């Protein structure tokens, strides 16, 4: 459902350039949850934005359902629901107005949007604050509305960028539980997160990004075999430590 080929992105920075994503390749099938893991600045968000067609890749390409994001951005966007930690909600609109507005933006018919909203509000327990202004909702409630907003047009692909940032344990649990539900629905899901313990429980496969490059990829068994470590946290620390020492050695003048 999602495939990424040699995806590269360089940003101009004064007279120089910063390499944010470096020849990245991976794929995610329908009904699969892919964990895109990595430290801050590893290129996770940039990768997700290029998949969605929000950023033009410097080279390489991303495809969703066989459509290249840079060539058919609107077609690709219609197939994707995006939940981002940095995303906000319209403070002067109610949760219901936000959901119906986004349903309309994605071309969902009004009756279908109402049905979908009823279903999502039951699943995510939005009922009691559906008609409250978004400014008055708590962080957890806002994040649930965000999830509902991303799902209101029933997309086959979900991109979740740090969906649990700023949430308490209960809030995170609701989100992760729902991600499992998305897999059961047959959606292709990419989750970018720092919560490695939960990611370990939830994701089918993992890609570990460091400085824009895919340092490791595979399911948990494959990664355990390759690294000799048991948990993602150990693998992550080990891998990032190794890569860090390699890159610093490389950078050191001879």
């Amino acid at each position: 459902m999602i495939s990424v080929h040699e995806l590269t992105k360089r940003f101009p920075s004064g007279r120089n350039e910063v390499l944010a994503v470096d020849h990245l390749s991976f794929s995610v099938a329908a009904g699969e949850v892919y964990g895109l893991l990595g430290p801050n600045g590893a290129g996770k968000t940039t990768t997700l934005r290029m998949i969605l067609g929000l950023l033009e890749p410097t080279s390489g390409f991303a495809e969703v359902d066989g459509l290249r994001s840079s060539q058919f951005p609107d077609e690709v966007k219609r197939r994707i629901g995006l939940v981002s930690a940095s995303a906000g909600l319209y403070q002067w609109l109610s949760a219901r107005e936000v959901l119906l507005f986004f349903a309309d933006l994605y071309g969902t018919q009004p009756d279908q949007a109402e049905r979908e909203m009823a279903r999502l509000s039951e699943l995510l327990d939005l009922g009691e604050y559906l008609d409250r202004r978004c400014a008055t909702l708590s962080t957890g409630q806002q994040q649930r509305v965000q999830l509902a907003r991303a799902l209101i047009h029933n997309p086959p692909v979900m991109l979740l960028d740090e969906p649990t940032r700023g949430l308490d344990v209960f809030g995170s649990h609701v989100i992760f539980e729902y991600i499992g539900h998305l897999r059961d629905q047959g959606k292709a899901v990419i989750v970018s997160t720092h919560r490695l313990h939960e990611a370990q429980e939830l994701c089918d496969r993992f890609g570990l990004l460091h400085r824009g490059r895919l340092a490791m990829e595979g399911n948990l068994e494959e990664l355990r075999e390759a690294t000799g470590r048991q948990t993602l946290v150990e693998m992550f620390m080990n891998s990032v430590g190794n890569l860090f020492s390699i890159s610093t050695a490389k950078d050191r003048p001879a």
Partner: protein
Amino acid sequence: MNASRERESAPLEFPQRPAKGELVGRMGRLALKELRETLRDRRTIMTLLLMPVLVYPLISILFQKLLITNLRPGDQVIYRIGVESEDDREAVRRLIMLGNKLIKGRDASSDKPDNDKTVLGPGQHRSIAPKPPTVEISLRDHLRTSVAEGNDHLGILVRQPERSGAELRLPVPVDCQLILQEHSGISREAAAFVERRFRAVNEQLLERRLRQLGEQGRVTVIRTTRDTVEPARGTSSFELAAVIPLMLILMTITGAVYPAIDLTAGERERGTLEALIAAPIPRLGLLLAKYVAVLAVALLTAAVNLFAMTITVLSSGLGALLFGESGLSLTVVMQVFGLLILFAAFFSALLLTLTSFARSFKEAQSYLIPLMLISLAPGLLGVVPGLQLTGILAVTPLANIVLLSRDLFEGNTDPVMAGVVIISTLVYALAAILLAARVFGSDAILYGSASSWSDFFRRPTEQHPAPSLWAAWWCLAMMFPAHYLLSSTLAQMMYLTPVSRLQQTSLVAILLFGEFPLAAAVLARLKLRECFQLNRPPMIAWPAALLLGLSLWPFAYEIVLLMYQWNLLALNTEFSKLAEGMLKALQDVPLVWKLVSLVFIPAAVEEFCFRGYLLSALRARMHAWKAILLSGLLFGVFHLIVTDALALERLLPSTLLGVVLAVVCVRSGSIFPGMLLHACHNSVLVLAIEYREKLATLGWGTEDQTHLPASWLLGAVVCAVAGFSLIALTRQHRIQRT
């Protein structure tokens, strides 16, 4: 994995690709949502409603205090009137006294207030000027100078019949010429004061005469005419009528600022922009929806302000003082609102462009404060006394709207200048929208990947075949004011000989239509050959161009003639005079110079610009026929303004010629046949004028404005059909759409 494959094969229901109309509807609903969200914010309501409701009454009180009480201490308005002789002084004094008495008696009997008091308004009248105005009549040697220098508010030049002395022998009419400063409120008011009293005297006499039935004779005693003088240098007063439009414009700006920031930088700061651009709506569509919302709020603010201003002016009676005797009419209010729409369209786009750069509300504010200060300068320039809407001011954004609104309020609008203001503002507005679209849609702006603005405007590294639409429009936005300014400046250079004037005209044409697009193309690293369509045309295009070039002028002539005959065009005396003057001046110029300056150079550079640069930009973004029509229209608009006259009769023929030239360019893939066509067309006109006397002796004149002989028209039709048929045989040259 099998399970997931099975799930993959099951179709997921998600919205299908929308039809074009549905997409437009969705963008409309998006604009409505933006507007709804903006209007729910109390800060918008504050700017929108509360400010005008409070500001205008406060300003009206301030005006009255400044204008009325400061005129003379002691709470009394005194009109200073100048006359030329002692006899005149006595006559004027007696007439005003009689008029005063008549008005007083009439108002007392009808229980109506004195209309003069409405200058102050019923509420304020008692508190500000409890006594009615009085007059001070002085003897002057030079009435016009005295009024121009502000020594007198009004001069009255009395022309009495010889037989009458100080005593007026009615009913022999007395002519009174009122000399006033048109732009001075107190001067206009003094004139209205005197006129009303003279009218009362006339009316009394009419009444008396009508009672004497059967008696013949004239009933008018005093005939008044007005004569205006410009204020003497250094003595002019502050122009109040220009303050009102400046305020309206500043309030409109204020209304648009908050939504512009909130819908761009504000959305980015709150994190809602990413969700919005992740939706399947083109970025241009998103920007247009935001633009519509900002424009709607700006217009709402403008409408509320205009309404509040009108109500304040009407209720306070400041109308006559600010806008002359006729006060404020609904037509003028609507015209000014039209101008505000135009201005808001331009400024909203400018605001969106700047705020799109900002990553936070605070950053956007820091961009807009300098803009507001910069905007104040041309706005205040518009308030400078005696400043006329001409030259560079007519194409200076904001100042031109302030001055045109002032002229509208004062009822002395020049249609040519109005045309220049409207066209230039429209061009600027479109340029600003296109720039905003470019800024809003860039990755650099959305994700702050550019380190500075210079990165954003960096020259592209790759060569492109055609200019972008925004670059082409910006080139036009620079060219239009430059075109107007250079043509007007050239017209002012009276000392130029006809030949050197022609040479300068040629240089201006080369600079405008050659250098501007060439510089734009080089800066944008365009492939010059493709951009300017400098290709070798098919051979068949040459005879086609020749036939069309020789056969189009009768159609242009007949179109203009028919427009006059069907009253679609009023006889443009100004343009006719200008054309006659030009013809006279060019009479002794050698033919070769005329051909170089009026035929070959315009044909070459205009094709280079309009069919080369502009048409390429349009064709890269739209269907060929749309590009042909639009480029033709723009070609027509550029021919609309000839130095100081608005040549409306040129719009349709020039547009049609532009369309034909564009068709030839699209079919042949080259601007060169168009150059031949253009040169032939122009040379027929130049030669017809050169040999018009000889032609007239042969009976081939067209000066009596009659239709051309049928045989000529038939010949032209045959040639044109042949030309079009030949050009239709060529294969359409395609441009890669972007």
